[in-house]
């Protein structure tokens, strides 16, 4: 329903002046949307002396800033921290969110409704309210300045459970029953039969979780004081404060934080747009 092709009845191919104006305005608006990204990337290829020339295409582009920023070791560390944390949290969410969702969608057991409503109700609680108790918990258990401390609050999400449950409900019971008769245990039925049937939803969840953790700022800022454990956004923020006016280096850091997600988009554009629609409409 979401991804159906353009409906011909609403697409008038006859060219009218109004359409051309609308198209041009839309296109120019799109170009304006891209200017911060274009300037960021272009400035990251400029030398300090060229920053203020405001040319979109650098006269003498070079990757010198990238070499400089990456060679001091901190940025590459932050980059790897972010990749690792976002990957592990995403895998954990894919596993646990969909296991919980499947159980709530397909099993009949006392307490099912209570568990579902309880998990759903946590969507009402903002992260900002939990950070003080989390910080207390982390400092008591020695999790401040550890990767685990950054990751633990996001390992299972109510959003993911809610999203996946709606998709597991569409999986026919007959498929599961057939697998049961074939002698598969319940875990294998979920893993081998049910999960492959909801891969579009899994990819939507993966995109959202990865992006959310890649860009996360508030909690990592609170729970890390050791700069070796910073994630890329937190590291970039402290780096930018330190550089203050070396905009070409700040833009290089910002590009390093931004380019990976844009690259992923270029490769998986179709999946990502569909994923956002799925999650937005169903979630």
């Amino acid at each position, binding site marked *: 329903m*979401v991804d159906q092709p353009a409906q011909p009845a609403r697409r008038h191919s006859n060219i009218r002046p109004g359409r051309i104006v*609308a198209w041009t305005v839309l296109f120019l608006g799109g170009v304006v949307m891209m200017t911060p990204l274009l300037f960021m990337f272009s400035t990251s290829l400029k030398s300090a002396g060229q920053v203020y020339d405001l040319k979109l295409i650098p006269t003498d582009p070079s990757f010198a800033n990238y070499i400089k920023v990456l060679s001091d070791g901190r940025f590459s560390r932050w980059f790897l921290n972010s990749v690792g944390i976002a990957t592990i949290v995403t895998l954990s969410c894919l596993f*646990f969110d969909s296991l919980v969702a499947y159980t709530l969608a397909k099993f009949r057991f006392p307490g099912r409704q209570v568990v579902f409503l309880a998990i759903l109700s946590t969507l*009402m609680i*903002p992260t900002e309210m939990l950070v*003080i108790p989390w910080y207390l*918990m982390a400092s008591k258990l020695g999790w401040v300045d550890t990767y685990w401390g950054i990751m633990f609050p996001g390992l299972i999400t109510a959003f993911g459970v809610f999203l996946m449950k709606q998709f597991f409900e569409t999986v026919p019971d007959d498929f599961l029953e057939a697998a049961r008769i074939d002698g598969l245990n319940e875990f294998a039925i979920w893993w081998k039969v049910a999960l492959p049937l909801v891969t579009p939803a899994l990819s939507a969840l993966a995109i959202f979780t990865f992006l959310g953790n890649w860009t996360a700022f508030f909690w990592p800022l609170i729970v890390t004081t050791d700069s070796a454990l910073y994630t890329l956004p937190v590291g970039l923020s402290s780096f930018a404060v330190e550089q203050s006016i070396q905009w070409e280096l700040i833009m290089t850091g910002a590009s390093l934080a931004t380019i990976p997600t844009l690259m992923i988009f270029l490769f998986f*554009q179709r999946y990502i747009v569909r994923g*956002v629609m799925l999650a937005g409409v169903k979630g």
Partner: protein
Amino acid sequence: MTAATYRPPGTGSGSAWGRLPISTKQIIWAWAFLALPVIFFTVVRFYPTIEAFYISVTDWDLLNEAKFVGLDNYRRLFADPVFWQVFRNTFAYLIFGTPIAIVLSFAIAYYLDRVTVLHGTIRALYFLPYLTTAAAMAWVWRWFYQPVPIGVINSMLSTLGLPTQPFLRSIEQALPAIMATAIWAHLGFQIIIFMAGLRAIPTSYYEAARIDGLGEGAILRRITIPLLKPTTVFLVVFSSIGFLRIFDQVYNMTSNDPGGPLNSTKPLVLMIYQTAFSSYQMGYAAAQTVVLFTILFTISMAQLWILRSR
């Protein structure tokens, strides 16, 4: 487990597990799957929620033993002029940001839905900013807003012979300047959701309207907008919650004087952050988080109420 074969309930022999009726097995499996997640939600969500309420009625400061102080933190908060300034700022982000974002994204989605030439490319131009990191883009925008000769926007203004603007250095302009970056970042998401909503409206409705002789404007007012109500309500609430929780952009764009100039851009979450993690007044900060929770809860309830009375 590989050799296990299906047995009708009650006919099993051998192991105790095999003799269990299938409904009992289902219950055991279900709770085995749920055990760890239920513990997780209890320890990482429910218990901290209760604890946040409890901390908000203590004078805990991270060093000394927490002492119960009743509603003192709330009394202090409501008597604090900075809190009311922050409260006004937070709602200013919402009251100006949400309508602008919704109208812009609807207009773009409405026209983009009909575009066939370079449809995917134009959509990508609007959508890409959504995939950026707020903390990183805050610095790009901060650079854009600098005075001449550094800032991109002011350099363009002066080239065109227009007066340059103080942007982040002005108590009037700083908040809208920061708000613009948040609108910019989320516009793509809202456009995609609106387009999904537009495509979900059955074509037959439009055909019927055309047969009845309705013009484009009337179709928009009488069919498209009413049928998009659930999508619009979702986006209004989602966007409002986003603006009420704004932090990354403000923190990074005003890092020399967080929330400045003169607290004119400070949102509630930044006040919470400073109270808790710069001044270590955990009790006072927790009271602020309870206020934030109350506001967000009210908005979510309003959404449910609006959608139910449909």
